[in-house]
């Protein structure tokens, strides 16, 4: 009897791991299988699960039928530059909010939390008008600016939660040793805060990579489309070439999945610290 309990426990743990993993991975796996099938295999009935004769033809077609490489590049440029801008601005704000005497601190924090919850659809129309007036439609800036600002609340809160764990004495000691406050910021606070900055950067990058509504609105030229919108261009008016769409989806999912897989612990920590975006 006593020997049975650990065995049962082990089964439960295994069962739990399989349920969570299948729930998370199955849709991506299904898309991967679909992307390796030929159109004829897809039409077979009953449907096959694992492809009979895997082919990479869909991937080849995905790159030639739409400028998929260009979409990748656009997403990469927009996501990295908006992340850079966001982290820079947020780091300054987070430092001020956690280490300096700021009047109405709580109010500022509340405004940040509220901005994180703003409905994008309400911002879409006036932002479209603004970008049109500034002549920025179909330029990277039309997405970089909004993405940087929309991720700013989360990034500021995440970094603030990291910054305030750095003992103020360290900074004070550096200042006594002759550093200016800015000098102390860069020599003491920044190195210690690097994990927080990095975590915030990943969150900002994923947010920008995933955004759809503004990307759809601001970029009407195909060559300026980002991935999230570009993928929807493979469908015809009535036809859905699923193997082709699946191949494009896999290409789009792989970079972000690798990023998430490499830094999973940080992402989880950041999500629960900032806890601001669903």
């Amino acid at each position, binding site marked *: 009897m006593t020997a049975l309990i650990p065995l049962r426990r082990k089964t*439960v743990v295994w069962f*739990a*791991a399989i349920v969570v*993993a299948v*729930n*998370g*991975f199955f*849709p991506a796996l*299904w898309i991967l299988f679909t992307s390796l099938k030929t159109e004829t295999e897809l*039409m077979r*009935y009953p*449907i096959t699960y694992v492809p009979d004769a895997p082919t990479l033809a869909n991937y080849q077609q995905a790159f030639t039928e739409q400028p998929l490489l260009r979409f990748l590049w656009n997403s990469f440029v927009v996501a990295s530059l908006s992340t850079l801008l966001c982290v820079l*601005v947020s780091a*300054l*704000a987070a*430092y*001020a909010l956690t280490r*300096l*005497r700021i009047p109405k*601190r*709580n109010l500022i924090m509340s405004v940040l*939390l*509220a*901005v994180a*919850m703003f*409905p*994008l659809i*309400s911002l*879409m*129309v*006036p*932002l*479209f*008008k*603004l970008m049109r007036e500034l002549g920025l439609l179909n330029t990277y800036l039309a997405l970089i*600016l909004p993405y940087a600002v929309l991720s*700013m609340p989360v990034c*500021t809160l995440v970094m603030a*939660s990291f910054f*305030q764990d750095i003992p103020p004495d360290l900074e004070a000691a550096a200042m006594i040793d002759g550093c200016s*406050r800015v000098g102390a910021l860069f020599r003491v606070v920044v190195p210690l805060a690097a994990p927080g900055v990095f975590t915030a950067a990943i969150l900002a990058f994923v947010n920008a990579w*995933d955004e*759809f*509504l503004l990307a759809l609105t601001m970029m009407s030229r195909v060559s300026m489309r980002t991935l*999230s*919108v570009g*993928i929807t261009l493979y469908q015809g008016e009535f036809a*859905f070439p699923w193997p082709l*769409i699946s191949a494009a989806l896999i290409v*789009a*999912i792989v970079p972000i*999945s690798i990023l*998430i897989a490499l830094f999973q612990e940080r992402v989880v*920590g950041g*999500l*629960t*610290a900032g*806890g*601001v975006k*669903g």
Partner: protein
Amino acid sequence: MRRPARGRLFDHATTANPALNDAPVSTGKDLSERALGFLLLMPAALLLGLIVFYPIANLVYDSFFSILLTQPGLGEPFVGLDNYARAMEDERFWHATGHTALYAIITVPGALVVGLGLALLANLPFKRKWPVRLGLLLPWALPLVFAGLIFRWFFEYKQGFVNDVMTRLGFEPLAWLTDPKLATLAISIAIIWKTSSFMALMLLAGLQTIPKSLYEAAEVDGATKWQQFREITLPMLRPAIFVALIFRTITAIQTFDIPYAMTGGGPGDSTETLAMYIHKTTLDFLDFGYGSALATLMFVISMVATSGYLRYTRRGSGRPGED
């Protein structure tokens, strides 16, 4: 894992470090510190003003005008509250609002139940943590519109995975995406899948703050697992559940991508959400005045929900289990 610090950020200002908070500024050094503070906050404030506050003000202003880009000859006359009055009589607006509410009613509790289940499973002692962690992170990292596309493929009538499983089990295949009720159900399932993992991550963080000793004591007293769940886990998790629910509700009000990718609002307008209707009104019908009024309404609804959240986090900071 790091302790989430949302509660503490507010705490910090009121209790942990009172010196930062009070104090009329008197000395020169303080003044320069304050000036530095403003300087550091300035870039963020400027960007927020340009990208968020100015556009919102512009939106509310536009909602009092008639702006038809299809008929520029009409000019942009001031119409007062006409756009809002029109919304009250617009059947499609009420349909869209009703669908949005329906999605919220289905997917908020749905995501909570699934998310709580996933969190409880993920909280078990695994030897290797990464498959489980990645299993929770992947749905979160996937763009909403991709999730919509993938589930559209799942629910495809002929070659879809769902109907294949149903026929194998001896059921008739269903027209998931062309029947209004089934389409609503299919979209809800996709939304629940996509959002439950983030909820699970938040609840998991809450679960990990519950002291193990509580369970050990209950075990000694002979409590069953179910009793432990009801008497320890749920009460301790209540603040985390509340926060997760409000997050989900606010995002549910804004639902756009998944129905957009799965049905485009169809058949008819039977799965169209408020956000989709606003998008169509402005960018397809080019009726910017009316669209702005609708978007203003959406903004107000979201902010009401958000203020509930803010009140809770500020009041509740420092409660056990919340951080």
